[in-house]
């Protein structure tokens, strides 16, 4: 009996070492998993700080800048003509609302174009990769019902869908008058992916002197091909009710 144990002692040591390697493998796998995943959430959070800062800054800049009345962006190296008229972009929005608050189109096409060109210059570092929705909406009514004063939808679109030989992708600009309040939550949020939003509160007054509180907001997302976006900007869509802003393209805004 004694000799049997002696013969098997080496085998026991081998099994022990195999257990040891199994434990080491489990520990190693755990460490490796930790190394791969460590900081991912923090990184994601920091990136979201950056992108929300970016969206907020874009919105703030929009409320500060001066622009020529005919919609030319002023650059630091520009030499302006004495006949040029300048104004705050925001003053133009206020002026439009005061004059047209009773009309269907409250913000004139010229001011819409001015907003689009200002956003084009403000979002320039990432201009070819972003789509966005800019809106001013009146908050109030039953269950937070929103009435949109203006909605500009900038979307990358394929020029000739289906024809691969001729297709090119360019950003198109739409002015939308949604017929119900939660269109952004219903169509944009689920389809845009990671979305950066900024919202501010402003006050606009009618010519009669009645002032109301409005929300000014922007949602920016990395451009992606989604059928729902093409459908939304299709002029047949009655929920978003979008029409293309004529004469506004990235090329025209860049020049």
């Amino acid at each position, binding site marked *: 009996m004694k000799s049997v144990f*002696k*013969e098997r002692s*080496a085998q026991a*040591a*081998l099994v*022990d*070492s*195999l257990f*040891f*390697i199994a*434990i*080491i*493998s489990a*520990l*190693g796998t755990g*460490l*490796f998993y*930790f*190394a*791969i995943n*460590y*900081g991912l959430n*923090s*990184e994601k959070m*920091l990136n979201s*700080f*950056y992108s929300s*800062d*970016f969206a*907020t*800054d*874009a919105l*703030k*800049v929009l409320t*500060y*800048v*001066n622009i020529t009345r005919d919609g030319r*962006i*002023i*650059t*630091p*190296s*520009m*030499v*302006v*003509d*004495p006949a040029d008229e*300048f104004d*705050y972009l925001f003053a133009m929005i206020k002026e439009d609302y005061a004059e047209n608050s009773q009309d269907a189109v409250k913000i004139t096409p010229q001011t819409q174009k001015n907003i689009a060109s*200002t956003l084009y*210059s*403000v*979002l*320039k*570092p*990432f201009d070819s990769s972003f789509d966005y929705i800019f809106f001013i909406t009146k908050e109030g009514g039953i269950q937070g019902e929103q009435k949109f004063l203006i909605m500009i939808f900038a979307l990358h679109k394929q020029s000739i869908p289906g024809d691969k030989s001729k297709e090119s992708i360019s950003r198109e600009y739409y002015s939308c008058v949604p017929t119900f309040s939660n269109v952004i939550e219903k169509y944009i949020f689920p389809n845009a992916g990671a979305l950066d939003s900024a919202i501010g509160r402003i006050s606009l007054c009618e010519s009669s002197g009645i002032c109301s509180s409005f929300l000014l907001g922007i949602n920016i997302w990395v451009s992606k091909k989604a059928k729902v976006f093409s459908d939304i900007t299709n002029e047949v869509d009655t929920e978003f009710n979008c029409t293309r802003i004529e004469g506004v393209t990235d090329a025209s805004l860049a020049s």
Partner: protein
Amino acid sequence: MSFFEKGFIGPIGDDLPSLIPIVTGLVIFFSVFVLTLNTYNEKNDYLEKQIDMTSVARDLKGDSLLLNWSQFNDRCTGLKIKRYPYSFIAAIYGTDVDLTKAIQDFKDASIQGPSGTREDGSGFGFIKQEVEGLDQQSFYCSYLKIGGRDFSSNMREYSVRFYPIAVQQPIMVATSNATYQYLIVPAVMAMVVWE
């Protein structure tokens, strides 16, 4: 105890088959441990760099509006006394400038200073303002950590960010006697952080 019993090779030789997995296990463990430690340190460095960058950018741009160069310079000077563990350069560009050249500009500006020139002889494209007694000053802020190397000699690992900002700028009016109109223009603050 006899060394001449059947099957005995030696104190180590007898355990050799079990020693191989033990040594292999230890090698695997320490390799993964070192890898994890390196990754942990690298990621911590990266995250700290990002946090510093966000903090510096927020301090520099304030409420996203700069009224003049002096305001920018005051903010920049205020940042320099904070002793960041990373070096950074921030500069403000007009929206008509090609921002893909920002990194090269920062590299060259770290050698020549903000009023230097690109290879083609043109300026760096930073917004400039005439400041009383100081001539033209660029919206350029650089900070080198203690013992740090300038950006041109340490471009191995860096982070870049862009922020929209509005700047009040004297815009020349085309009249016979050059006059200026103070207007708020959209601009972009580019920033790079490195170790």
